[in-house]
């Protein structure tokens, strides 16, 4: 788990969290071991945060097999399925840090994946839970890109029926087709909608037309000269004149 010393110095830490992370997590390590024995090389990488959560990345061709193996091992509760676009947004970060020094920070970040790594721009993400042991697993898989740029993955619907709507949403939002899906219509968007809104290169037009004030929600103070030039008529409007200009 990533711990930053500067944070823990100023804020109270959880007692339980510290104890839990000191001891190895047999339950979650066991899940990773069981999956590895089921899938062999299908398990690419795993990441366990003791007492908290576990991530497993599987190969794209093992995606359905991983779901079946987990379902067989008691992870019968389907939580969610979605995807991540790891490409840094070409439109910049949502908010820039006003405290950071502003020297040449406009370079676009490199693409880097999160826990358990990854080689592709898109990753599928799904979570299933064991309702008896009350432990969940977050599965990830790289989505390989075909020569023509299309993305496709096999469907989970035969394994977890609840994946139906989630895959429809993921398909329209990220442009990932699910092979074998029984009802591949759009979930939310109109039928003739073009583009995939949750891709990072899909512009959020409302934000581009009118920038959000964001962290700086007050306009900078007007210059003294301008306030004086504004004269008596604008005194009430600006509210910042100290009265010296009029008297």
């Amino acid at each position, binding site marked *: 788990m*990533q*711990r930053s010393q500067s944070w823990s110095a100023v*804020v109270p830490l959880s007692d339980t969290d510290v104890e839990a992370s000191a001891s190895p997590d047999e339950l979650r390590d066991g899940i990773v071991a069981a999956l590895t024995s089921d899938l062999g090389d299908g398990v690419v990488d795993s990441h366990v945060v003791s007492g908290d959560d576990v*991530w497993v990345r599987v190969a794209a061709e093992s995606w359905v097999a991983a779901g079946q193996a987990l379902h067989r091992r008691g992870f019968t509760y*389907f939580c969610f399925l*979605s995807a991540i676009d790891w490409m840094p947004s070409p439109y910049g970060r949502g908010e*820039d840090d006003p405290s950071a020094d502003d020297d040449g920070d406009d370079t676009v970040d490199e693409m880097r994946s999160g826990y358990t790594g990854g080689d592709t721009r898109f990753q599928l993400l799904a979570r299933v839970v064991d309702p008896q042991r009350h432990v969940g697993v977050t599965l990830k898989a790289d989505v390989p890109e075909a020569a023509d740029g299309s993305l496709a993955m096999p469907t989970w619907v035969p394994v977890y*029926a609840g994946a*139906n709507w989630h895959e429809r949403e993921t398909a329209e939002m990220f442009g990932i087709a699910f092979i074998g899906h029984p009802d591949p219509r759009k979930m939310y968007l109109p039928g003739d909608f073009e583009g995939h809104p949750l891709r990072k290169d899909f512009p959020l037009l409302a934000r581009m037309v009118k920038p959000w004030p964001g962290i700086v929600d007050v306009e900078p103070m007007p210059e003294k000269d301008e306030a004086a030039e504004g004269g008596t008529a604008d005194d009430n409007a600006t509210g910042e004149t100290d009265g010296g200009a009029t008297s």
Partner: protein
Amino acid sequence: MTMLSERQQLSYIAAQAADARLNVELETEGMTLNIGPQHPATHGTLRIIARLDGEQVVWAEPSAGYMHRGYEKLTEVRTFPQVTSLINRIDWLGSFANEVPFILAAEKLMDIEAPPRAQHIRTILFELSRIANVGLFLGDLGVQMGAVTPVFMAFRDREYVLNLIEGATGGRFHPNFDRIGGLKDDLPKGWIDETKQVMKKLRRFCDEIDDLLFGNEIFQSRMRGVGVIPSDIALQYGLSGANLRASGVEWDLRRDQSLPMAWDKVDWKVWTHPDGDSWARCWVRLQEVRESTKIVDQLLDTIPAGPVMAKVPRIIKVPEGEAWVSTENPLGEMGYYVVSKGDLGPFRVKIRSASFNNMSIAPWVLKGVYVPDIITILASLYFILGDIDR
């Protein structure tokens, strides 16, 4: 799994046979009924397309998206503290409860925890929003069957709870009160006594509803044995909350995971029902409101002293990482998968809302029921449109 696919296959054959019979016999004409997007029988703008054979539903499919607001995209251009004002509006009847899992996820990434007093007050407000939310459900339930009285009682008593939430947070519907590291403010003077009085009123409200509605013969005959969902199907579709517990799965995220909240410090019970029908779903919710009043009462007596805000920097930067936190919201499991890149705002937020999964079972459970049962089944599954469409 085999059971499901077999069943799906059978229902598919049945649908085909029904269509074929319509075409051959021509005695009853098949009909496609379009309920919604604006129809008093639906909660908001959910559209249901139902294919009917006489009075029976051959095939039904909810059509969502009339209220899709794209919160997952919008969170990517907000700072972490700004996100709470958005996600408040997902389940608008229990809005404070929406803020909590997101704030907990951000706190998990930052490796901080709210002070004990803040955790207590968070839990109290969380349960109050559950009472306001599910209380209205109990009243609204009668309206679905033509009983108008309970909804007035529900609105009357929900008002007390909303007043409490307003008293503590300043917002009746959208508190936006939860902060990374604690709460915006402490409780106002006299709030604890008033809350205890209101909890007494709410328990009386539950007794009234139990008597008036759940004891009603028409209500029982409309609800019992209708819309049965077995536990394995419920789990496959990711049903959560009272819908899952009504199918006999004893699982409550308040009890079964360790969160920096105060539920483990009080004595309460997780109610389940073995039947899995509409009646069971409503009954479990009624018991849960009662339990919530008990939780609030006990927590009010044990609020620890201390600050309500941990020391956090003025400009909050969340370290790089990924975190998943879900809580037992009024509608079911509500969770956020938060990916941070160390910036001011999240890189990606996956919002797992309860109603989305709860409604995805509708095509399965509506197959073969009669038209009036569509309304009661959907009412008992209990969804909020904003929670489906996000």
